[in-house]
């Protein structure tokens, strides 16, 4: 039983946490792709930027959240989401829009987004240094221990994780309602389906593009902040996020927001399961195993230092066997 709790804490909880983060990042990537038709490589850095803005705001007003009983970082989220969205829209206007107007190939947009990646990385590290920093400034992370009868090991879940699950659920439901009910949300899907016809129907495509950046920027801020709140803010966050969120978006079928959510959880759980040491679960069976079968201490599929291999392997597998993704994305 203890082993099962261990499994729950280290796989179910951890996998859900990573899954939520990747899903929110991948939704942004997939939305930008479906409206603007290019892979936006600076997205992981937008997640970092959002978290960094929250860090700055939290440092400036460390006790803003006390009266609400929430971590200050959470209270600062809306402000940071607005700021990051503005930055995203600004980057689009200054850097991407002129290239679009020139009618460049998508690959040039990709290189431009790599340029934006470097700019954002440089800026963030210029001001933050390179060390890790907790988003709990002058406060402590609450950790919930749930004791089950008959087991010694408690289920452990932290406050940021609970907030993350709630926020992800709200964000996903909100996005779903927006895309299926709101006039602009439907227009967004229409533009992703057929941009020329959307224009010919009188849909304001500029507005839709702005809206896309706002949604993607806000989700990026949410994901980046909640990840940093759970662990710590690191300026090289984007390095660990880039490959998984793209793998998630591609697994789900590029241009397919619900696919991105599924892809995010798939990649998140695959990573967690791959680095999980399975010999812990098999330990109770050790005595009943035949003597010739010696159980190694380390039965993890890959070491944590090779975690990056997991999303890459998933990516390659999808590209080889099903390039349109599990949910039939738009374009190969």
């Amino acid at each position, binding site marked *: 039983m203890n082993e099962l709790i261990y499994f729950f804490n280290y796989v179910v909880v951890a996998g859900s946490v990573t899954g939520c983060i990747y899903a929110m990042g991948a939704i942004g990537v997939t939305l930008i792709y479906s409206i603007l038709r290019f892979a936006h490589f600076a997205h992981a850095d937008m997640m970092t930027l959002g978290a960094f803005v929250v860090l700055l705001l939290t440092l400036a007003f460390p006790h803003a959240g006390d009266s609400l009983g929430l971590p200050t970082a959470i209270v600062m989220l809306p402000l940071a989401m607005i700021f990051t969205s503005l930055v995203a829209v600004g980057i689009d206007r200054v850097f991407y829009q002129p290239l679009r107007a020139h009618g460049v190939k998508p690959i040039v947009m990709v290189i431009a987004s790599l340029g934006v990646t470097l700019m954002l990385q440089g800026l963030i590290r210029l001001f933050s240094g390179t060390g890790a920093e907790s988003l709990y400034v002058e406060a402590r992370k609450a950790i919930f221990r749930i004791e089950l009868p008959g087991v010694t090991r408690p289920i452990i879940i932290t406050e940021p994780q609970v907030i993350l699950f709630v926020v992800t659920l709200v964000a996903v439901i909100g996005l779903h309602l927006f895309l299926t009910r709101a*006039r602009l949300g*439907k*227009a967004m*899907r*229409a533009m*992703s*389906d*057929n941009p*020329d*016809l*959307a*224009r*010919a*129907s*009188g*849909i304001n495509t500029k507005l839709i593009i702005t809206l896309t950046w706002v949604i993607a920027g806000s989700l990026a801020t949410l994901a980046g902040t909640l990840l940093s709140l759970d662990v710590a803010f690191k300026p090289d966050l984007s390095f660990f996020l880039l490959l998984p969120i793209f793998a998630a978006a591609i697994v789900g079928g590029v241009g397919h927001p619900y696919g991105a959510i599924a892809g995010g959880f798939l990649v998140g759980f695959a990573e967690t399961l791959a680095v999980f040491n399975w010999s812990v679960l098999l330990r109770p069976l050790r005595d009943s195993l035949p003597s010739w079968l010696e159980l190694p201490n380390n039965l993890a599929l890959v070491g944590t230092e090779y975690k990056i291999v997991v999303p890459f392997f998933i990516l390659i597998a999808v590209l080889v066997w099903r390039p349109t993704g599990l949910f039939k994305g738009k374009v190969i």
Partner: protein
Amino acid sequence: MPLLEAIDVHGGYGGMNILNGVDMAIEADEIGVIVGPNGAGKSTMLKAVFGLLTITGGEIRLRGDPITNLAPHKLVERGMGFVPQEKNIFPSLSVAENLEMGAFLKPGTVSRLKRQIYDIFPPLYDKRHQPAGELSGGQRQMVAMGRALMNEPSVLLLDEPTAGLSPRYMNEIFEQVKRISATGVGVLMVEQNAKQALRIAHRGFVLAAGQNRFTDSGEALLADPQVAKSFLGG
């Protein structure tokens, strides 16, 4: 004053002239049909009217106002609807959502107009929650026309609405075009099925090499032995 009027229109793609002086005029409740051999500039003319290519000479007027080389979305605001030949629906949106997108500029009128469209195209009502991409070719064409009508256009441009459809659907589409025109919408369409299309046409324009060859009422053109011989396959 005609609803839509084109006077001596010249234009083409990338410096190559395809239209060499086309004249056209239709009234508010008329159906105008453009026919002619391949490469005569039929679709090009329709695209020129809708601002999709640059007109280098001549003029286009809507109710007497010059609209030459206005951007498509400006024309939509002025009450022009355009149904392209291909890619004329939003495949992953439901039928109802497709129609709503047509009325994007007039969100207040959506439910009233949707009812009207379902009256014109009854098969769409049953499929209104289905993704438009899953419908049959004829039904897609209905969705496309319905989408354009949602903006309450005064003139509707149709680019080969019956291309690739079975004869049964073709007749149905022509019936519906007649019904649309009866509500006071001017229709200008390009057609490959020249004979059938001219039967419902008030005005017919036979183009060849980017110029009007014959211009008359649909009936008169059908009766003209020269037109029949050179353009309607005897």
